[in-house]
C-alpha cells in the first residue's frame, strides 16, 4: 500500500452524497495523542491566497530562527509538498512513515458508519503535518485550511494566531448558502485561546460577520486587525507579485503577531532579507525554463478573469510579448471571463482526464484543443519561446512536472540549503 492509498482511501471509497466527517477526524486526533500537542499554531483561512500567506509566514518565522512545519494544499508535483519543514518538502520516507502511523491509528477507529462520513485527504495531511511537527520538535506549526474554518480539520488544533485572507462567495452550498455563512465558518477557526487575528481588507458585509463571530467566540476579548497594503513596512520588492502581495503581507503580519505573543524576537534584516528574497512559490506567477529548449513559461494557477489578467500583464511586463497561452479551465470555472481576457491572444485549451471535471463548454473557433496527456516538452517548445500557462492547480502541476520545476523548497531558511535559482524574465 502506498502512502497515497492511506490518505485518499476513505475519500475514494465514499458513497454518493457522503460528506467528510470532522468527528471522525477528531477521534483520530485523540487516538493519535495529538490533542495536547504544545506547539504554537498559526492558521490561515479564507477564500484565496492562503497558501501564499502560509508560505510567507513560514519564511518569516524561519528567518527568526524557528523550526517551522508548514501544511498546505494542494500539491503540485508530489504529495510530499503538502508538509514542509522550514520550507523544504518532506522526503518520501518521511511521508511513508507518517502514512504508516495514520494507517495504524485510523485502523483502530470505529467503522465509518459510526461517524457518518469519511476522513478527508486534506484533513489527513493536516494530521500528518502535526505528527511531523511533534516528531521533529518544531517550534511553530503553520496550517492552511483546506476549505472553511470551523468545518475544516484545522479547527482541531487551537491556533494562537489566525490570518484571514479575502473571503468571498465560494463553495456556496458546501460550507453555507450565503456569504455570511461562509464567513461565519471561516471565523469558526478562532477559539477562546487565540491571541490575535489579522485579516486582509474584507467587504463590509463579511467584516461585520467575522467581527461579530470573533467577539462572540472570545467574549469580546479579540478584534480582528486589518492588514492594510504596505502596512508591514516590508519593502515591496520582498513581497509577492500581483494580487498575492496582499496575502504575503498578511502572512508576515500573522508571523509577527505570533512572535509577539510567544515573546520571540523578530528577525533581523540581515537574516530576513535573504529568506524573503528566496521565496519562490511554484504556480504563482512563477517563471520556468523548458529543459532542453529556449522556451520560457510563466505559470499561474489563475482560475478567473482577474487572475488571468494579472498573469498576462506580468508576462507582458517581463517579455513585452506573449507568444502563446495554455489554458485549462473546467466548466465550473470562469471560462467566459477567460475567453474575453484572452480575446486577442493565441490560445491552446487543455483538457484534463479527470472524471469529476467537465470540459463541455463551447470554445472560440480560433483556439486549439489538446488533452493534458498529450503535452510534451517538444510540444511546449513548438508553441513559441514565451508561454503563459494558466489554469487549475492540477493542470499547472502537470506542466511544472513536465518542465521539472523545483517545487521542493519554497524558501531558503537561514540554516538550509540554497534554493536553485529560477529563470526569471527581466
Amino acid at each position, binding site marked *: 500500500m502506498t502512502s497515497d492509498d492511506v490518505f485518499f482511501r476513505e475519500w475514494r471509497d465514499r458513497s454518493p452524497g457522503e460528506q467528510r466527517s470532522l468527528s471522525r477526524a477528531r477521534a483520530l486526533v485523540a487516538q493519535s495523542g495529538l490533542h495536547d500537542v504544545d506547539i504554537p499554531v498559526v492558521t490561515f483561512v479564507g477564500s484565496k491566497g492562503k497558501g501564499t500567506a502560509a508560505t510567507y509566514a513560514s519564511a518569516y518565522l524561519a528567518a527568526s530562527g524557528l523550526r517551522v512545519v508548514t501544511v498546505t494544499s494542494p500539491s503540485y508535483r508530489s504529495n510530499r509538498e503538502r508538509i514542509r519543514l522550514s520550507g523544504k518538502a518532506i522526503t518520501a520516507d518521511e511521508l511513508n512513515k507518517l502514512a504508516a502511523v495514520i494507517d495504524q491509528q485510523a485502523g483502530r477507529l470505529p467503522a465509518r458508519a459510526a461517524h457518518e462520513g469519511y476522513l478527508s485527504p486534506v484533513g489527513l495531511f493536516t494530521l500528518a503535518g502535526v505528527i511531523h511537527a511533534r516528531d521533529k520538535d518544531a517550534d511553530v506549526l503553520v496550517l492552511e485550511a483546506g476549505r472553511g474554518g470551523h468545518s475544516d480539520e484545522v479547527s482541531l488544533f487551537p491556533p494562537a494566531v489566525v490570518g484571514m485572507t479575502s473571503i468571498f462567495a465560494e463553495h456556496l452550498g458546501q460550507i453555507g448558502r450565503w456569504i455570511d455563512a461562509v464567513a461565519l465558518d471561516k471565523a469558526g477557526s478562532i477559539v477562546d485561546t487565540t491571541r490575535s487575528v489579522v485579516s486582509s481588507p474584507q467587504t*463590509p458585509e463579511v*467584516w461585520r460577520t467575522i467581527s461579530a463571530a470573533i467577539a462572540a467566540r472570545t467574549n469580546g476579548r479579540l478584534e480582528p486587525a486589518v492588514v*492594510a*497594503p504596505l502596512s508591514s*513596512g516590508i519593502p515591496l520588492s520582498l513581497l509577492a507579485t*500581483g494580487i498575492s502581495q496582499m496575502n504575503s503581507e498578511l502572512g508576515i503580519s500573522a508571523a509577527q503577531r505570533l512572535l509577539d505573543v510567544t515573546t520571540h524576537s523578530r528577525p533581523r534584516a540581515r537574516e530576513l532579507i535573504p529568506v524573503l528574497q528566496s521565496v519562490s512559490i511554484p504556480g504563482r506567477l512563477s517563471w520556468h525554463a523548458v529543459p532542453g529548449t529556449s522556451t520560457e513559461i510563466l505559470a499561474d494557477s489563475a482560475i478567473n478573469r482577474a487572475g488571468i489578467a494579472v498573469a498576462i500583464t506580468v508576462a507582458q511586463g517581463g517579455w513585452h510579448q506573449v507568444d502563446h497561452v495554455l489554458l485549462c479551465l473546467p466548466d465550473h470555472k470562469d471560462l467566459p471571463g477567460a475567453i*474575453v481576457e484572452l480575446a486577442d491572444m493565441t490560445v491552446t485549451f487543455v483538457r484534463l482526464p479527470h472524471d469529476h471535471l467537465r470540459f463541455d463548454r463551447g470554445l472560440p473557433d480560433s483556439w486549439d484543443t489538446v488533452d493534458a496527456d498529450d503535452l510534451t516538452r517538444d510540444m511546449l517548445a513548438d508553441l513559441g519561446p514565451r508561454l503563459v500557462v494558466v489554469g487549475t492547480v492540477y493542470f499547472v502541476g502537470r506542466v511544472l512536472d513536465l518542465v521539472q520545476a523545483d517545487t521542493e523548497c519554497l524558501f531558503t531558511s537561514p540554516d538550509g540549503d540554497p534554493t536553485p535559482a529560477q529563470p526569471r524574465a527581466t
Partner: protein
Amino acid sequence: MTVIKAADSSSIRTVEFVTDARQPLMAQVPTVHLHSSTMAALGLSDFTLSTIQDGESGRTCTVWVVGNSEPLWDDCPTPWHRTIRVSASAWRALGTGQPVRSGRSTVLSYPAARLPVKGVLAEQLIADDEIGLHYDDVVRLGIGQWVVVNYNGVPAACRVRRLRSSADLGFVRLPLYTRTLLGIPSWSPGLRPEVLIAAFPVTERGAPLLIAPVLWKPARAQRITGTIGTFTDRITTWMLRAPSTVLRTVEATPGEDQGLTVRLPAELFPLLGTSPGRQVYVEWGPRNRSIATALAMGQETEHDLPDFQIVGDRLAHATALPSFAQVRVGATTRATLGVPRIAVVSVRRRVVPLIIGRLNELIIPVTGLSLGIAARVHLRLWVLVIGIAAVLILLLAPLRVRRADLRRVR
C-alpha cells in the same frame, strides 16, 4: 504637451490601453480607472500621478490612476489588462474636442521609481513639506524643485532638498511628521519601506503643470486683477509672514462638501496666525492653491462618521491618523486643486483679508483721531505721512508672525 521629466527611462513606464466608454466616468479631478488586477500586476498604488496620451490626437494630460473592480468591469468587452476608463474631467483636460468613445488607443505613462526611506538627521533641517534626495538621484530621476511622493495611495507634493552625502545615495529622507502623514510604518534596521517617487509634472517650458487646468480663458480685467492680487499677496506675506503647516486631507464635514471651507484642528490657528472664519490658502504643489474659509474642527472621531463612507477595499486604504494632522477639505476645494480625497496638502493663512479686516475694525477710531488731529493741529506733510505709517505699523504689528530663530531668549 505634458511631460514627466525623467533622465532615467526606467523610472517611467508606459503601457498601451484602449478606452472603455460604455458609461461615463464622473470624477472631479482628471482620473483614469484600471481594473484592480491590472493595478496589482503593474505594482501601482491608487492615486499615482501619471500621464495619458491620446493615440489619435497625440494630446496628453496629467491624471490620477485608480484601481477598482466595480460590477461594470464584469461586462467589459475588451480584456481588462488592456482596458482603461477615462473620466470626463480627464477627457476635457486632454482637449481633443471630441467625445470619448470606446476602443480609442491611449498610452499611460506612470512612475515606477521606488526609493527606501530614511529618517532625517537633525543637522539636515529638512522641513515637513520637504524631502531629502541625493544630488545624483535628483539628476537620475529628472527631478526639479518639486517631487511627488506616494505611499499606499497617499500622494504628497514636496520640495526637494538636495543632499551631498554618499550615505543618502539611493534613499529618500523624510521627516517623521511626513512619514506619519503618508502612513509609513516604522521599520526594523536595514528593512526600509519604499515610497514611489516621481518628478512633478511640468510643461515643455518647465513650468509646473496644474492637474485640474482652468478650462476657460480669463478676461483681460480678470488677469490684471489677478496679477495685482498675487503681487499684493506676495508683498503682504513677506511683510507679515504666513507660516504653513502640512496636513492630510479627509472628507469634509457632512454638509460642507460644496462650501469653500476647510476644517482645521483648533490648536493650529495660533500657529498659523489666523482665527476661525478667516481665509486660508490650501496648496498642493507649486503654484497650485485654493482659497477657503478656515473653521475649527469639532471633536468628532472617525467612529462618528456614517458607515456608508467605508466602502469595500477603501476600508484599509490609508492608515488612521491623529486628529491634529488632519484637515477636512470639501469636494469643491479638492477639485480646484486637482487632488484626490486623501492627499497631503499645505495650509497657510491669507494675509490680505486679515489686513483689510484689521483696518476695517479700526477705521472709525483711526479716522476720527486723524480728523481731530488735522482739524486742531497744522501738520507738515512728511509728519503726516510718518504718522500714518506709524499708525499702520502699530495696527498691523499684531498680525505679524514672529519667526522662529535659533537664538535663546534672554
